[in-house]
Every structure is written in structure tokens, then in C-alpha cells.
């Protein structure tokens, strides 16, 4: 057999080789029609420390900023202590290095963008299920006239098992939300 990750057809993969898989797809959610929120539960667990969440597609009834909130609501502090910034510049070059922040909010309110073309959200979520602060990074901000990136922390030691995405305005329709776990097998 060729040296992994160059596999040969029909080869039997060992457990050690499979344990090298970097990203593991945990769940996929097909978003309904004209929904005011999408909740994915039981996707964060002790199986992984860090995750990638992608919702690139579907559409929205209005333009606006996408918000992220951990869950479930039974976890104390799930709806508070969210801090984030979004750095963005305009594609036409007329205005660069803009910054917007949100402190001690109920969500991360500027963590993606949505409009009639699509919902555009993709982010790394760090340590949501550990008893320490969770954080979000590598989240692009992709608006029609400007682009940038978002990062943030949630200053709470809650051990979350899921999350909810909400549009800043209007509703979501369609598309798929995929949750991946970063493999921590040694």
C-alpha cells in the first residue's frame, strides 16, 4: 500500500491511520423555509475540543448580520458575556480598517452576513464544551460592499452542547449547516 495519505483502492485502513483524519463531520442540518432561527443541539461534546461550523448557502429574506449563541438555555450564562470585534473594509477602497465591537452581549451579533443571495457564515469554535471560556475565530465577514473578519470570546465557563444562529433581520431559507470536529486523537 502507498504511504498515507496516498491510499490505494481496496486497501484496508488501520485504526491508527483513521485516527489521523483531521476533520470529522459531526452533523448536517438542512435549514427550513422562512425560519427565524436555527438550533443545532448535541453537536458539541467531549469527543472534540474544537469545531468548524459552516453555513454557506441558502438565502435570507433581508440583509443583515448573523448572530451566534451557545446552548442549551439550561447552561447558566449561555446568553451573556459575549465579546467580539469585526474588522472590515470596503471593496471599492473608499474606507478601510473599520472596526465594530460588541461587549457583554447576549450573542456574537456580527459573526456573518446574510442577504437574498445567500447566508455566509463559517467559523472555528474553540472549547465550547469545556468548563472555560469559549471563543470564535476565522469567521469571515462577507457583505456585498465590504469584507473582513470576526473574532470573539464568551467569558463564561459553561459547557455547551449546541448553538443557535439567528438573522439580524428577516428569516433564513434553505442551505445546510455542517458541524465538523477537529480530531484530537493522538
Amino acid at each position: 500500500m502507498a504511504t498515507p495519505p496516498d491510499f490505494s483502492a481496496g486497501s484496508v485502513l488501520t485504526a491508527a491511520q483513521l485516527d489521523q483524519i483531521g476533520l470529522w463531520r459531526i452533523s448536517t442540518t438542512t435549514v427550513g423555509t422562512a425560519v427565524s432561527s436555527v438550533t443545532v443541539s448535541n453537536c458539541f461534546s467531549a469527543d472534540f475540543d474544537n469545531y468548524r461550523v459552516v453555513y454557506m448557502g441558502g438565502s435570507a429574506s433581508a440583509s443583515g448580520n448573523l448572530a451566534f449563541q451557545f446552548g442549551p438555555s439550561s447552561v447558566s450564562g449561555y446568553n451573556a458575556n459575549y465579546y467580539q470585534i469585526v474588522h472590515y473594509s470596503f471593496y471599492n477602497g473608499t474606507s478601510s480598517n473599520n472596526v465594530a465591537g460588541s461587549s457583554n452581549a447576549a450573542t456574537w451579533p456580527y459573526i456573518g452576513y446574510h442577504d437574498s443571495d445567500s447566508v455566509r457564515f463559517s467559523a472555528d469554535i474553540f472549547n465550547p464544551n469545556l468548563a472555560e471560556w469559549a471563543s470564535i475565530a476565522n469567521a469571515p465577514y462577507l457583505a456585498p460592499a465590504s469584507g473582513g473578519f470576526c473574532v470573539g470570546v464568551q467569558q463564561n465557563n459553561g459547557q455547551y452542547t449546541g448553538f443557535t444562529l439567528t438573522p439580524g433581520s428577516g428569516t433564513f431559507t434553505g442551505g445546510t449547516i455542517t458541524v465538523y470536529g477537529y480530531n484530537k486523537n493522538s
Partner: protein
Amino acid sequence: MSDPLYGTFHDAATGETITRELTPEEIAALPEPPEPLAGPE
């Protein structure tokens, strides 16, 4: 009477996805829309 609001709910443990009307409690828990970012969009 206002139109009902709906949400999609997916349970990664079971793989089940449903879209249903939000309860009054869930509607009350929806976050307030943030201020729009500065500049034309």
C-alpha cells in the same frame, strides 16, 4: 395578530431535523437585532 415565527431544530445525536412554530418563550429569547455596521452596504 402577528404571523407565527418558525425555527429549524436539529439534534446531532439522533440526526432528526424539524421545522416548527416557535413557542412564546423561544420568541422572547430571540436576540435583539444589532445596530447596523457603519457605511453603505
